[in-house]
């Protein structure tokens, strides 16, 4: 199977590999996939006080396409608001990396990871604790 140059570049030089403290109030963590299916993505976003994603990190267990998809979205979400980041679609990821049809699920997983991270961040900020902190 021939992969695109962009995909190979993201696989060989993955951007933003790493982890943030998941208990940090400014961090949202998305963990999607399952080991038994051969793909697990962890995507973390760090959100500034004014609601902008200022940093992102990932760790992925999976094939080259899964790793490249998650590396790519860490670049894409940076500088975006949560609402903007939530509009990233798997088709854009698949198109950018020229994913072969059997690898489309990797881009779907990356989209799910962004949504899960945003949801986690939002969940943290509606807890009674944060309500009080924000008041």
């Amino acid at each position, binding site marked *: *199977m021939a*992969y695109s140059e962009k995909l190979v570049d993201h*696989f060989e030089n*993955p951007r933003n*590999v790493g*982890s943030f403290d998941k208990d940090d109030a400014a961090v949202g963590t998305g*963990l*999607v*996939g*399952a*080991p*038994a*299916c*051969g*793909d*697990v*993505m*962890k995507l973390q976003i760090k959100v500034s006080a004014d609601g902008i994603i200022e940093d992102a990190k990932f*760790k*992925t*267990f*999976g*094939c*080259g396409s*899964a*790793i490249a998809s998650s590396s790519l979205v860490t670049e894409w979400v940076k500088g975006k608001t949560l609402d903007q980041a939530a509009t990233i679609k798997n088709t854009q990821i698949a198109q950018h990396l020229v994913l072969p049809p*059997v690898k489309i*699920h990797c881009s*779907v*997983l990356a989209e*799910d990871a962004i949504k899960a991270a945003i949801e986690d961040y939002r969940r943290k900020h509606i807890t009674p604790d944060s309500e009080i902190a924000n008041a």
Partner: protein
Amino acid sequence: MTTLQRRSGSNEPSRPVYLDYQATTPLDPRVLDAMMPYFTEKYGNPHSRNHAYGWEAEEGVETARRQIAELINADEREIVFTSGATESNNLAIAGVARFYKEKRNHIITLVTEHKCVLDTCRHLETEGFAVTYLPVHKDGLVDLAELDAAITGKTVLVSVMGVHNEIGVIQPLAEIGKLAHAKGAFFHTDCAQAFGKIPLDVEAMHIDLMSISGHKIYGPKGIGALYVRRKPRIRLQALIHGGGQERGMRSGTLPTPLCVGLGAAAAIAKAEMAAETTKLTALRDRFMARIQSRLPEVFVNGDTTMRIPGNLNLSFAYVEGEGLMMGIKDLAVSSGSACTSASLEPSYVLRALGVEEELAHTSLRIGFGRFTTEAEVDYAADRIIAAVQKLREMSPLWEMAQAGVDIKSIQWAAH
């Protein structure tokens, strides 16, 4: 980086190191030398009885037949040439089943057999045959008591692979043959990966039918053989009809150069098997020692002693096999997982062994062979170590394991 001493003929620097000897092997140059005259001046049809061209081609074919027979303690009249082990397996299983169907209609095989055995059995089920697919132990080996219990007075054939193509384990052929014969069933063994690699003896092992492949033993592709016992005589219904060549069991003009090549490859294997086993064992142990000195949590799939030295099926925990393959592009190995196909399922063989799905997704099949060098083995081990370390640093599962989180305790969403 280690400079690689590549064997002559493949010294382009961009070619990956070949470590996929279970998929196929390069032709031994000595085999090619034996074959060449039969492509050029000795081009007669081996079935032509009326002139010297036919006779010299026939002599080449019959020498090859004898060379094959000698490697398994058989008579040359018991060797039927085919196009390869897939055809041999089809002919043995379907041929015997159909011939004896009035008396017996039950076949026993293992869930870990090669697809061409399983698929033939599936097809026979549609013709009304009953097939038992026996499970295997965690080490990949057959349970003899379970096999014994499965054989009935209706069982016509027990088909068990000699050496496994994915995990390299060696089945106890003599014991299986004895059990089959005790209840009047025939014993077929797919020895595509065993022939020329381990000592085989059709008498001592009670084998009635044996499938043989050319290209797994440094012979040409497109040729194989089926051993069919004569005493007592095993009958089979042919799959290919025509001029009645190969005693009516396989019609069609024999490809003389390919037959000669398979014979030459068998003769070399007979002469060099012991030395080659020693060499491959040393290479395998060297490779494993290097890997294990640097990487924790690497598991061998399949029994660790009852296996051929030229095969390793390894699970690198927390690293997905296909991603790993992409990280070692300069090594030609095979992914233990079937992820390169459209399916998300890991190997049916590893699942049959009870390898947990998450580990089954992390496996590689590494095959060493006649032309593998120490430098290649060291280079391959170092490349794999570097790739696994890099991918583990990137793996959320590795991170959790290091933090003491039990991955099984997490509620994973299936997708």
